[in-house]
């Protein structure tokens, strides 16, 4: 299909496996992939969708309550001015990077095991970004004045840089997601024309943009995706560095470090890859895609996660050894609050979730089973949410001049909106699995043909 795709040197990427089900033909692949789009969703699907929708609506009404009364309905105070809204902001922007990383960087390097993961990874990017960006809007005292950022731009503000970066990232990743979808939309258009509602076929036809799979079209698609991969890679670095700038460029103790940029980038990719694994395991289980998402795939992505886990530890170590050795009073106050004081339980739980638990499970081969991977990835994501909390809140609570300690406990409004944002993200993903192929059919096909 792709000219010269058989020439790829798989030894470079260490690919030795191959598909466990060697007999599965192209037609078989398509019918398996398209099955979730045709069959009537079961009771479980509707129940899950309804529960998620209810949580989301509840969170929206909590936000309405907050808009009416002001941020006094949150647990925020002096001096903890930023709380879990900002934690969610960093978290959601963070997991969005995995999508781009897996699909673009691994696409550039032609890493073979990426193939079944790309679609879901890109979907996670596109679905988590709106929740990340809106977390900041939720945090604003006057959300209706959001446009002032563009009407009266102040170019030295990292928030303006964030707005520029994140909106560029959102547009680019949506485009990238859509372009890679075109051949599969065309497949839906051709194969599902008699089985699904005509309205859906009409939408598939419009979205496929007249894709017929000619050589010229494939050439153009590969060229565009290749170019965009490089651009997106640069965007991932810049977006998350800018997110870290919101904290790192102030002189606040605990935030003001040079390492915070790469620390945030690594943390983002770490939690993002873990999210992709959880999503793919769920998909494999519900749609019985064991033939295409083999244990070997998960073993490889597990090793990748191990590398990220070690990087994450390295940056954490750098961050704290610098503070500890420097012994500056204000910085040590934050350090002590995290290591031994008020936030110790939070910090050490975070550290266990992000490093102590995942490390042995990912590093020791007999432990790196698919079942273990599933819960470890959930643990990592809990840890990474707590990591953002332990970066944002303790620094807020220990300013340079102590006006008396203040404790921050998120209120029910903040928890409701947080739950709603997670539910909304899951809901979008859930609906997506029923509307478009969840694995990149054409990329998996390329792989099959080359064997």
């Amino acid at each position, binding site marked *: 299909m792709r000219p010269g795709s058989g020439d790829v040197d798989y030894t470079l990427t260490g690919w030795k496996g191959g598909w466990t089900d060697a007999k599965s033909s192209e037609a078989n692949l398509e019918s398996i992939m398209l099955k979730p789009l045709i069959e009537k969703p079961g009771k479980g699907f509707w129940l899950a969708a309804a529960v998620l929708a209810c949580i989301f609506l509840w969170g929206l009404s909590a936000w309405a309550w907050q808009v009416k*009364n*002001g*941020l*006094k309905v949150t647990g*925020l*105070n*002096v*001096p903890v*001015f*930023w709380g879990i809204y900002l934690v969610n902001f960093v978290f959601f922007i963070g997991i969005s990077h995995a999508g781009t990383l897996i699909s673009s960087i691994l696409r550039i390097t032609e890493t073979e095991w990426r193939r079944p993961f790309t679609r879901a990874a890109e979907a996670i990017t596109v679905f988590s970004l709106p929740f990340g960006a809106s977390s*900041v809007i939720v*945090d*604003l*005292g*006057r*959300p209706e*004045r*959001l446009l*002032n*950022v563009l*009407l*009266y*731009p*102040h*170019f*030295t*503000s*990292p*928030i*303006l840089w964030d*707005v520029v970066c994140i909106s560029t990232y959102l547009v680019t990743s949506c485009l990238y997601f859509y372009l890679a979808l075109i051949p599969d939309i065309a497949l839906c258009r051709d194969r599902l024309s008699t089985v699904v509602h005509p309205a859906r076929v009409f939408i598939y036809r419009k979205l496929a943009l007249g894709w017929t799979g000619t050589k010229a079209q494939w050439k153009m698609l590969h060229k565009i995706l290749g170019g965009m991969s490089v651009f997106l890679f640069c965007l991932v670095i810049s977006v998350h560095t800018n997110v870290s700038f*919101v904290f790192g*460029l*102030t*002189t*606040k103790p605990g935030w003001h470090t040079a390492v915070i940029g790469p620390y945030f980038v690594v943390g983002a990719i770490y939690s993002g890859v873990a999210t992709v694994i959880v999503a793919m395991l769920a998909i494999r289980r519900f749609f019985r895609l064991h033939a295409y998402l083999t244990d070997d795939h998960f073993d490889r992505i597990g090793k990748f996660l191990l590398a990220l886990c070690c990087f994450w530890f390295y940056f954490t170590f750098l961050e704290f050894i610098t503070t500890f050795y420097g012994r500056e009073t204000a910085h040590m106050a934050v350090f002590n609050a995290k290591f031994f004081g008020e936030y110790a339980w939070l910090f050490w739980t975070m550290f266990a979730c992000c490093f102590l638990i995942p490390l042995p499970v990912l590093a020791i081969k007999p432990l790196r089973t698919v079942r273990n991977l599933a819960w470890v990835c959930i643990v990592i994501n809990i840890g990474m949410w707590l990591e953002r909390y332990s970066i944002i809140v303790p620094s*807020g609570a220990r*300013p*340079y*001049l102590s*006006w*008396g300690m*203040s404790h921050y406990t998120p209120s029910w409004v903040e928890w409701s909106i947080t739950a709603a944002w997670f539910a909304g993200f899951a809901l979008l993903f859930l609906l997506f699995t029923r509307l478009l192929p969840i694995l990149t059919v054409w990329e998996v096909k390329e792989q099959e043909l080359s064997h």
Partner: protein
Amino acid sequence: MEPENRRNLLKRLAAFAGGLLVFVPRAFASDGSEGEIVQARGKHRWGMVIDLDRCTGCQSCVVACSVENNQMLGSPEEAAMGRVIRWLKILPRTEGEGSHVRQSLIPMPCQQCEDPPCTRVCPTSATFMNTEGIVGQVYDRCIGCRYCVNACPYTCKFFNWGEPQWPAEANQSFNPDVSVRYKGVVEKCLFCHQRLQRARDKAREEGREIQERDYVPACKAACPAQAIAFGDLNNPESEVSRLADSHRAYRFLEELGTKPKVIYLREG
């Protein structure tokens, strides 16, 4: 790509890069508002000196400041959450250990930094430094992101967590020269800027230059111990300039390079 096209593209890219080189440093050099206003530096540089040797910690300044600037009354619940807004607060400080413990009370208004960290980070220029060095706040432009509040190392900026509650009688007692703030915006000490406006108007009417005695902030006017001096730091003859040169003078968190224009005189 045709060579001709490529050359044009390169030319355009070079022009764009050149433009960035010119524009970006300017944006960073600005003090937080439109470049041309900042470059025209005002004649005066208003500053304050607080003599901690004279200060008794009576909090008259806190009360005078609240009344002058229509600050929220605040409920006990708000006080418990640390959400009551007082532009001028008393910072309690404990120094020493064992039997040599010394408690001091330090009145802290906005430190009116010469290089303010808060104006740099504001995404909408809602906080800025004016020509005479006073850090201002545009309530109607503020989006309430609280970035400036976080960037201020002195914790001297305040956020309206909710709509301030006023008893009906307050309508008669508001200072008409100061706007009443609303929920979701940031506010701070402005060196009683309204008094500067009034002093300027008066001087203009009388056809003379503004003088230091025309402009007295509420906290200074109220201080029974005369611990607060206020005036023009640009004028070497002024009381503040003289006191700022005292060997007892220091600024808070000087090491951060914010260059505050509120200067303290150490207890003797």
